Structures are given as structure tokens and as C-alpha cells.
């Protein structure tokens, strides 16, 4: 049994890419037709539950996609096993922390009230 698997990460990488493409298309349309937001409007928009869920999903897709990509780079180029294991763990930890940070940020916006 292998740790990293073959088909599943490949599928996750493709699905997360498609999801992010869709989000970016929506964002591009939004930026093109809308006015630059004021701070108050930005914060108000971000505290809506649907925005928070969408942003959390986007970041989750982003960090999953980044994990698989970075894992591929490390598996390709780093050959000494201890170094590879260390770098993979560091990247995984880093991405998990970023996900946690996003949750904290979103919770902060929500907690302060809309």
C-alpha cells in the first residue's frame, strides 16, 4: 500500500483546478463590472455566510491543489529519503497552517458581527 496513491491525487488536482477556474471566472466578471470596493463594503460582503463558505471552499481547493503540485516537485527532485520526508512534512504542515489561518480570519470577520 502506498502513502501517496496515484489516481486519487490526480483527480483532486484536476477537480480543484476546475473549481478554482470557475471561481476565478466569477471573480473576473465581478471585478470587471463592479466598482472598487470601499473597506466597509468589502467587510460587509465578507461577513455574509455564503461568501465565507465560498471563500473557505476556494482556499481549501487552493491548498489541496498546491499540496499535490509541491509534492510532485519534491518527489521529482529530492532523492535522499530523510530530506524528502522532512520537506514533504514541512510543506504539509505549512499548508495546513494556512488553512487554519484562513479559518481564523473568517471567524474574526463573523465574530465582529455583520
Amino acid at each position, binding site marked *: 500500500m502506498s502513502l501517496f*496513491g*496515484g*489516481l486519487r*491525487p*490526480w483527480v483532486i488536482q484536476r477537480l480543484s483546478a476546475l473549481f478554482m477556474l470557475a471561481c476565478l471566472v466569477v471573480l473576473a466578471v465581478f471585478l470587471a463590472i463592479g466598482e472598487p470596493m470601499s473597506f466597509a463594503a468589502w467587510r460587509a460582503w465578507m461577513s455574509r455566510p455564503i461568501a465565507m463558505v465560498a471563500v473557505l471552499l476556494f482556499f481549501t481547493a487552493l491548498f489541496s491543489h498546491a499540496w499535490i503540485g509541491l509534492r*510532485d516537485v519534491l*518527489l*521529482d527532485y529530492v532523492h535522499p529519503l530523510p530530506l524528502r520526508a522532512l520537506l514533504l512534512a514541512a510543506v504539509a504542515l505549512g499548508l495546513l497552517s494556512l488553512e487554519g489561518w484562513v479559518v481564523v480570519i473568517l471567524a474574526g470577520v463573523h465574530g465582529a458581527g455583520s
Partner: protein
Amino acid sequence: MRFSIYRYDPDRGAKPWMQDYELESEHGDRMLLDALVRLKASDDSLSFRRSCREGVCGSDAMNINGRNGLACITPLAGLKGTVVLRPLPGFPVIRDLIVDMEQFFAHYHSAKPYLINDQPPPARERLQSPEQRAELDGLWECIMCGCCSGFCPSYWWNPDKFLGPAALLQGYRFIADSRDTATAERLEFLDDVYRLYRCRSIMNCTEVCPKGLSPSRAIEKIRLKLLKHSL
């Protein structure tokens, strides 16, 4: 004609070096192999593999002016300037342009490149429709020359764990064969982060295949089969 050829002598133990040669073109010179044979006549120490001289045995694969190809079907007229010859990239060099193909063939062997069908054989052939037979076109013609795997960066970085385009193409040749019954096992073997999934469709393999095959497309089809198989 001027040549710059990679030389390595394991008995001398020194590092590889590039040796320059000059050759007067003769009437019979058409392919690079013709020139190499004449160069060897004047310098017998120059070593390279060759056999059929018509592009079907795959012996004389090498890096020609930066791209992999077969010396016997590379026209001299198409080679510009000083012809620079090097061994297949990424393969251990035994001597001059002769490389160690052991790992390459081990990967081929691991893909079980033979028909697996335990059902009792029929009185004559195991029949295939013309459409089923057509599925094998672009796959059976591989001559295992190594040009593809020798041009694949993913194979360069992990030649021991990544199977490489040649073995993967042969793996697909049997997955695609309607007479083979081991598809599930073949797919399971390939479903591995190293064996198959080091490939990221760089497509260097397809660029240099001297038989015009497309290992990248075969690999893509394995991925789709794996996906369908899992759903």
C-alpha cells in the same frame, strides 16, 4: 563533414570527453550511420550499437544535435553544422555511445508485456474484430529503442521508480488488447505515484519517437481507463 562525438573509456577510467572528427563525404553517404561506420573504419575505438540499419531494431538510438533519434534513419543532409553526437540522456554510459539498458528493460518487463488470457485457447486464433485490432495501432510498432525514455525529464529524475514512456506505452498496448483478460491487475499495478504518475505530459517522448508513436497519448489513455475503472 565535421563531427563532435562523446567518448568514454571505462578502462581508462577518466571522465568522458568530446572528440572531433572530420570526414570527406562520399557518394554513398545518406544516413548518419553510414558516416559513423566510416568513422569507425578510421578510428576503431569508436563504439556504438547498430544492427538492422533500417530503423526497426532500435539499436542505434542516440542524442543527435540535442535531440534523440536513430542514426540509421537520420539523413546526413538534414544535419546542420558540426554534428554533435552524445549517448541517450539519463542512461548510464558503458562506453562512448553505448548505454546500459538494463533498467529500461526491467521496467518493460515489469509491465508484463505479453498476452494474459487463462481461458482455454480456441481451436484457431483468439478472434478480434478489425475495430478491436485497430486499437493496437500506434502501440505494437514500438521497437524499444529508448529515444522516448531518454528524452523524458521525469525519467531522468527517477529512472528507478518511474516506468518511463516506453514501458508505459507497452503497458497500454496490452490493456487495450481485447484478447487480454488481466486489465484490472495491469491498471492496479500502474496506479502508483511513481510508476505512472510521475508523467506530467511534457510530451518530449512523442516529439522524438522515430516510429511516430505517441507514448504521451497512451499514458493519457491509461489515466482515463484508471478513472473509468474506479467509478
